[in-house]
């Protein structure tokens, strides 16, 4: 804590407001600490859709399942394939390809269900195959270049010879499944 001397002086003991101000200042200080931002390391689960490797924060991922029989629900949104039973909990199965604008593809032996949790709701994302778990520093994630500027990308990371499109579950589910309000995030205008 090298920046301690720049904090407000010890507050007057009589005023509780100044204690609050003091605490606020302390809290506000921590994340803005320069030089730390790029060091933050996060883990991502990556999967393939066609030849695109896409990464989701591991904190949003609950488990990976082999595909089982998916029950269709009449009149469900077009990006939803149906429902599966996850240890007694009924979870929507999301056609990730449809959500991200890829051409449809049948489920194969390598297809998996990647179960994610968003705002206490669980979704099973159908992916072509699961790839790996990677660690990425914030500084390693760049703004998507024009040829990869897909609307769902948070950024891209180059790892060895491959390119990973970094995104999050809210962005994938955004099209008609999770509304911007319930994901707690505004729509990029």
């Amino acid at each position, binding site marked *: 804590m090298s920046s301690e001397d720049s904090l407000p002086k010890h507050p007057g003991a009589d005023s509780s407001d100044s204690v609050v101000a003091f605490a606020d200042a302390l809290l506000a200080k921590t994340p803005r600490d320069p030089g730390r931002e790029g060091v933050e390391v996060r883990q991502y689960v990556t999967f393939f859709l066609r030849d695109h490797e896409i990464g989701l924060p591991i904190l949003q991922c609950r488990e990976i399942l082999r595909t089982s029989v998916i*029950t269709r*629900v*009449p*009149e469900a*949104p077009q990006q939803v394939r149906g*429902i599966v039973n996850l240890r*007694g909990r*009924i*979870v*929507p199965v999301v056609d990730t390809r449809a959500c991200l604008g890829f051409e449809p593809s049948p489920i194969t032996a390598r297809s998996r269900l990647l179960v994610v949790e968003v705002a206490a709701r669980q979704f099973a994302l159908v992916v072509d195959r699961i790839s790996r778990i990677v660690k990425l520093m914030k500084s390693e994630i760049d703004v998507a270049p024009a040829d990869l500027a897909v609307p769902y990308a948070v950024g891209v990371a180059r790892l060895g010879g491959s390119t990973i499109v970094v995104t999050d579950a809210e962005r994938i589910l955004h099209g008609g499944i999770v509304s911007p309000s319930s994901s707690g995030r505004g729509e990029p205008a």
Partner: protein
Amino acid sequence: MEDLFASLVKDFVDETEPLVQKASALVLKLEQASGEATKPLVRSLRGELHTLKGNSAMMGFTPIEKVAHRLEDVCAEMAAEGSAERRAQIQLLLDGCDLLLALIHSALGGGVDPAAAEPFLQRSPQPGANVPGAEPSLAGADVPAPSAPPVTAAVTENDESRGSTRIADDDIDGLLELAGETIVGQIDLTRVHSRLARGRFEPSDIALMDQILLALGRTSRDMRHRLLRLRLAPIAMLFRRFERFVRDLGHERGQTIELAIQGGETAVDRAIISRLYEPLVHIVRNAVAHGVELAPERASSGKPQNAKILLAARLREGRVHVSVADDGRGLDLAAIAAKAKAQGIDSANLSERDVQRLIFQAGLSTASSVSKLAGRGVGLDVVASVVQGLGGSIDVRSTSGRGTMFVLDLPVTVSLQKALIFGVDSETFAIPTGFVVDTLPNREKDLQAINRVLLCSWRGDFVRATDAGRLLGCQGLAEAWARPYAIVMQAGNKRGALLVDWLSGVQEIVVKPLDETFAGCTMIAGATVLAQGRVVPILDCLDVVRRISAALLPEAPEANATEASDDVF
């Protein structure tokens, strides 16, 4: 931070709501009590109000604090029993409790409006001093109409969305023990499994596995049973809300109506309790409007001056029977028959019981004038469909001059229901049996298409029918005519037949809710898991029957059939 505050508000509401309800019940008792008996009542009332005041002050809900404080003041200066001033004070206390509940609920919806309490606080500038007219006038009250408790909507909505339950530590310990048992069972099985996998089978292993499976089965059933029990609450929670309601209904008509409660300790699913309030309000209101006679009429037919309404609950064969009875004049069969005739229903050949049941049809209200209480001709049909939606049924019994009794036959829990399983094309669905009136073989000669409307003949009548595969969007080519079975359903007063490929027996299913992703799928009420983990959607019969009665055959190949039948007419 916001989440923390929201959870504090939730706790606040959970804690204070029962306080106000208790206070409200105390005021009602106070109204009846006299002499020494009133003192402990006033004391506990002040206690409840004081706690509420403290809790609200802590949360910064000043309007609630102020109202509670004002009511405390009123308690401190209760006027002499029997005086008009006393009656006004009682009314003020009751209205104050209503307002408190409304304010508490508004805290959930984002905050308490500081202005909301002002009219009330101004209405009683000095407690006991000058309440206008000194007459307990309900119409003059500045709070929402007291006869329809303002909390209605808030409570029913929030009970479901909040969905929290207090659990005793003992219950949690018991469940943890059971969970531990299942893990022990799993370890035992793993041991046997690894022996078998290495090809070292011992004859005693079969007996050992039998034993483990038996224990696991017992443990998991016990665990589910205990968990289900956690969802239950005494139905008195629901019944007590009617004490005030019945009193106000009586006062509006200038008479005293007593409410009797039986079987309040009967345990019922909280979800049922919260959804049963509206239907019961309707039935009780009807009982007063149509059944209970005014004092002179009661006197001339030799009945006690005070009318009586009974709310009762009891368990019967694993279901709950909730009844609402009054000691009024009974159903007016002649009037019902006349109304039915005006609607084109001939009741001449119906039994007395069936004529009585006509009141569940839409548009049949026998109140001769439209009053505030009843007579709008909507209601009992809606009540019937709500009850069906809970997996129950409703019936009425009435004896002329003696009274009327409504009986609601309900499941103890909504998460367990009996359902009929059917299949169409390659898909499987479940229908709660409460909606199924009949299943029959579908023969082509029983189907008839008139102007693209498909009709199925059933018990000498015609029921609108539709192909289940087409309605539910299944991938199949079969036509309505080719389906081997018809399921006749009734929801409210509407009937409809679904034409399906196969039926399997009725079975008990665990109803699981669907994610809000499926909010637009109005034909589906939830899902259940059958043997081998197969997930099956449960139909929402209210919507399915509505769709059947609007469904038309497609223009194309059936056009010939339409023309053919046009020729006949």
